């Protein structure tokens, strides 16, 4: 133990450290539970051998502003590699890989998910109201020698202009990116890619 004069400071510091840690943990718990702000956690196993029959890449509109976007990743492409959405409010992504691990990132947003072969990643993105224009989609996990060529484009069109558009790569407004426990899919997935 420290000399007697030091012991008191030691205990004071331990209390301060514990308070810092407890404060950080509490704020993360608040955002996770109260605001439902969690990383993507849902996945459904899929047999990579039967992807062509069981997974159709493409965009499907489920309702006003509600889209389902199925994306297939592979060395070194995203399919579809151009996605156009009009006034999206809620985008349900389903993404899987036909070969190795890839990383799905829409630059300038909070959309950031690992794409793991054998599993379909399922998550929802509610784009901020001022999200507009073309967004760059990249692969952020090394997937082979052509990794740097793997890119796609998401275009958000606003027919009822709410705010002036953001261009690629801005982080001014962070999208709310929440986990959805049960995703239900109705109807046939239409390939528009």
């Amino acid at each position: 133990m420290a000399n007697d004069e030091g012991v008191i400071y030691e205990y004071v510091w331990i209390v301060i450290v514990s308070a810092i840690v407890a404060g950080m943990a509490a704020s993360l718990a608040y955002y996770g539970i109260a605001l439902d702000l969690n990383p993507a956690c849902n996945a459904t196993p899929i047999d990579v051998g039967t992807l062509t029959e069981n997974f159709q890449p493409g965009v499907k509109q489920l309702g006003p502003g509600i889209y389902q976007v199925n994306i297939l990743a592979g060395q070194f492409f995203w399919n579809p590699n151009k996605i156009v959405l009009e006034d999206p409010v809620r985008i349900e992504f389903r993404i899987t890989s036909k070969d190795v691990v890839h990383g799905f990132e829409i630059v300038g947003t909070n959309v950031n998910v690992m794409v793991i072969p054998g599993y379909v990643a399922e998550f929802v993105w509610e784009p901020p109201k001022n999200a507009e224009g073309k967004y760059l989609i990249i692969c952020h996990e090394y997937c082979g020698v052509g990794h740097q060529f793997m890119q796609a484009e998401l275009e958000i069109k606003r027919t009822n202009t709410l705010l002036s558009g953001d261009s690629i790569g801005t982080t001014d407004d962070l999208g709310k990116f929440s986990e959805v426990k049960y995703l239900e899919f109705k109807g046939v997935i239409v390939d528009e890619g």
Partner: protein
Amino acid sequence: MRVNEELFAKITIAFSFVIMAVGGTFGLLQALNRVPFLSLPGALEVSDSTYYRILTCHGVCLAVAIPIYWITGLAAFISPRILKVELDKRLLALSLAMMLVGGVMATIVILAGKANVLYTFYAPMTAHPGFYWGAALLILGSWVFIAAFVKQYLQWRRLNPGVGTPIAIYGLLATFIVWIEATTPLVITVLKDFIPMSMFGKHVDVLETRTWFWFFGHALVYFWLLPVVAMWYYLIPKKLGVPLFSESMAKVAFILFILASTPVGLHHQFTDPGLAAEYKFMHTILTLIVATPSMLTGFNILATMERGGRARGGNGLLGWLAKQPWKDPVYLGLVTSMIIFGIGGITGIINASYQLNMVVHNTAWVPGHFHMTVGNMVVIGYTAITYALLADLFKRKLISKTAAYSHILLWSIGLFIFSLAYYYVGLHGAPRRTSNIEYGGLLPSTWILPMEISAIGAILMFSGGVAAVYAVLGSLLFGKTKGVAIEGMKIGNPHPETTEFNPLLENLKMWVIFAAVLIIVAYIFPFYEIFSRGISPVPPVETGLS
């Protein structure tokens, strides 16, 4: 050949600086080639396939090989001098042979372009079996060394009942306990999944192998840095000539590292689909807990420095700071590494903060963070401690104090510039591990200037690295023999004050059992989730490049 402690330490420590020269050169090439729209002279320009090849080598050599060699070397040299008990010579010889053969084998396979899988080697990418066998041999060789170390410690304990473990030895024991915690899952998955995948085409579940990997991957970083922490506790009071502010607080910090450094791996997998939010959050809390020993350490060392500075005549609120022995490169390096670790550690808290991770996961922010920690704190720490070892171990005088100062200054400033630039572009979404981030000209313009600045940082770092390699290898090759230990830095007896025996803190067996329980609790749920859902194996994908 008879391998005694000194020969073992000489070979491993000198070898780790040779590797540093190679891996560091690759690092410079990567930093330059990543700058968008920069045309480099032909000799410096690398193709995409070469980029990933040298990136794999940079990661494996600097993150895995150097720490293993350097730490075992430090322990082999320092522990017999403090404990006055010898290490088992046969185990030393076996360990050295395994580590050298394994390390060289993996490096040859990587440089031959047969293992472009990066240091994380995520399945189902597959490398030549020599890569996995080499890595396994390197790690198992370090286990053999640990067996010798533990045997020595237990022998000392029998001879010295009721004596508190000297803090340097306590720190090294914590280092090796964490290393066993970390590498056990790695060895399991390499033997069970990766070697069969690479040799016989076994299909493996990628989510499962990623979870095994990160079970290892985060505890690894504590293996890198714990010996530096142990040497802060050992050498800083020694140099100042005052006792450590609180030895029990230091031991509590090491126990917290033993408990919480391993059950935190899911914070590398926050964005992995297929792992439930609850488990990710549990690992978040444990990660925050593992920040506490670092905060205790910072307090303890600063309080010791204050006490030392005041004993040397420093008055007033901050006068003690001016009275530190800054002219000693070892001391300067140790304190610099601690300050940098503070900054790097705080940015690590951001990565680990669950929701915030979505903004920075797999972006350039991450290399910004770990270059600040392992690249900066660990490299400066290892090198500064090596300066202290030159006289005692190699019987050489430090060839140039200027080179040693230049190394500490150029390296830390260069790395600061590099890391800040990477933090910035990372927040703007620039990816890590990508040879070229131009994306056909579609990259955000905010990426360009910071990437250019990062290259300047890398050049400064490289100059600092040249100074470090010159100071260490130059002293070995051309330094004056019969070196004199830098005053106060002679490795030997523990500090006279370090004799108090606290049964709770000395009962490491109990803390290891607690750590094992915590690890099982933290990992049983994610593995249950993976296996109960039914694993989904996929075939291997070759990445061998021509």
